[in-house]
């Protein structure tokens, strides 16, 4: 089956990834992450000084700011801020930096669907670049259930999102990976490693779990990509010593 964006042939195919770390000069960490024509830039400042009223005595304060592609931030952006903050708070080992602030700014650069998933992936890369201590890394993927064909399409574009019956975004950590092909263990792994899930539209329970399963498998590729990106950066830094 050919997809609406014509570059992909399969429903379970992701668009090509692209990432770049350490782009911004004045932030402590920054990264860009692309899913095809969707692009998000993220900057991290911290652990830095924090306003006295936001200061927490036993851990770092995490502040997330989401900037839209154009115009002023609206309700949608505030919802994304909350989603990012609530997912990251348990992931960041904020107890290691009490009475400090970690500010994360997420800016959409190009919007062609799946922005929330792109933002999650950009944020984790920026956090890794900033050297913020984390419990694990995460990876995010969006999928839709097509209104006409009832097929599950991974990583939808804006065009495909318009035909969606329901949209699902899943975020998984890298602690448990698929060890066998048995679906039972698979299901457990999906449940254990889900950090965040956001669904809109009408869908059945079966559809939801099928989406989760498919996204979980796709996220393994995202994890692999993040690992390669970090590895390349480190090798570049170390080449003088090891050559």
């Amino acid at each position, binding site marked *: 089956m050919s997809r609406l964006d014509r570059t992909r042939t399969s429903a379970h195919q992701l668009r090509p990834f692209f990432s770049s770390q350490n782009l911004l000069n004045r932030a*402590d960490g920054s990264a860009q992450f692309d899913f095809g024509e969707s692009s998000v830039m993220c900057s991290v400042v911290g652990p830095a000084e924090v306003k006295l009223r936001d200061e927490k005595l036993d851990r770092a304060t995490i502040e997330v700011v989401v900037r839209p592609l154009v115009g002023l931030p609206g309700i949608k952006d505030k919802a994304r801020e909350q989603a990012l903050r609530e997912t990251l708070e348990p992931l960041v080992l904020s107890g*290691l*930096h009490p009475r400090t602030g970690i500010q994360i700014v997420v800016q959409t650069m190009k919007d062609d669907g799946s922005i929330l998933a792109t933002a999650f992936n950009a944020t984790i890369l920026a956090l890794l670049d900033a050297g913020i201590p984390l419990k694990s890394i995460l990876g995010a993927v969006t999928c839709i259930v097509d209104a006409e064909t009832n097929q599950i399409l991974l990583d939808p574009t804006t065009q495909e999102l318009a035909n969606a019956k329901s949209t699902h975004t899943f975020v998984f950590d890298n*602690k448990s990976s698929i060890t066998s092909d048995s679906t039972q263990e698979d299901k457990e792994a999906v449940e254990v490693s889900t950090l965040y899930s956001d669904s809109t539209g009408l869908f059945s329970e079966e559809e939801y779990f099928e989406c989760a399963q498919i996204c979980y498998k796709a996220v393994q590729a995202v994890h692999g990509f993040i690992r390669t990106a970090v590895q390349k950066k*480190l090798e570049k830094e170390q080449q003088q*010593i090891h050559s």
Partner: protein
Amino acid sequence: MASITTEEESKLLIVLPGDQLPESGLMEDSSAAHRLTLGPGLAPMDDDSITAVKAGILKHNAVGNRWWVESNQRRYVAAQGESIIGVVTGKSVEHYKVDIGASQPALLGVLAFEGATKRNKPNHNIGDLLYCRVSMANKDMEAELECMNPTTGKADGFGELKGGFVIKISLGLARRLLDPKNLVLRLLGQHIPFEMAVGTNGKVWVNSANAQHTILICNAIRNSEYLNSAECSAMVKSLVEKM
């Protein structure tokens, strides 16, 4: 995900947050005492496993069975015993307030200088540049500094840095500059006489006979971060020739 194999497949063993260290591999070298010392980037988790919390290169020292993760970041987090460069930002009866690039300014006692007494102590003003040592670092408190060697009470090179120029670089590059075999500094030294102080907080002070030389040295250091040995020699050569 991805437990780490201890056999060295490549030269660099790269870990990401969430990667668990195998317990058997951690203990194999410590035949006498079953002790394990964890350095930066590694932490014991709730499930008793030892997990990486930063992205970097896993390093091991058989003496004392030490394990740590060598990572790079731009924000300084004070650690005891490190030599750093700071700027005086405030002054009170007992302390100088020094900006060291961490989340909070550090405190430097007015008597923490060589031969300082209540009657006779050095006077520093706001804006002065100081090369000092972190005498106490605690995540819950402001860091404390001193401008002398605590065992001998001698200055040992610590104190005010006069003249020259300061640049900010990543903490990883600063650590590599402290390596006596560092390539870029050796190459620069063949062409230009200069003096420098490297703070592990990523601040580098450079002083030479004239401003052109200082700027050239600063640019060469900044450029060297992501170059290999051959590129580094070419870069220094072209900068020196253009002068």
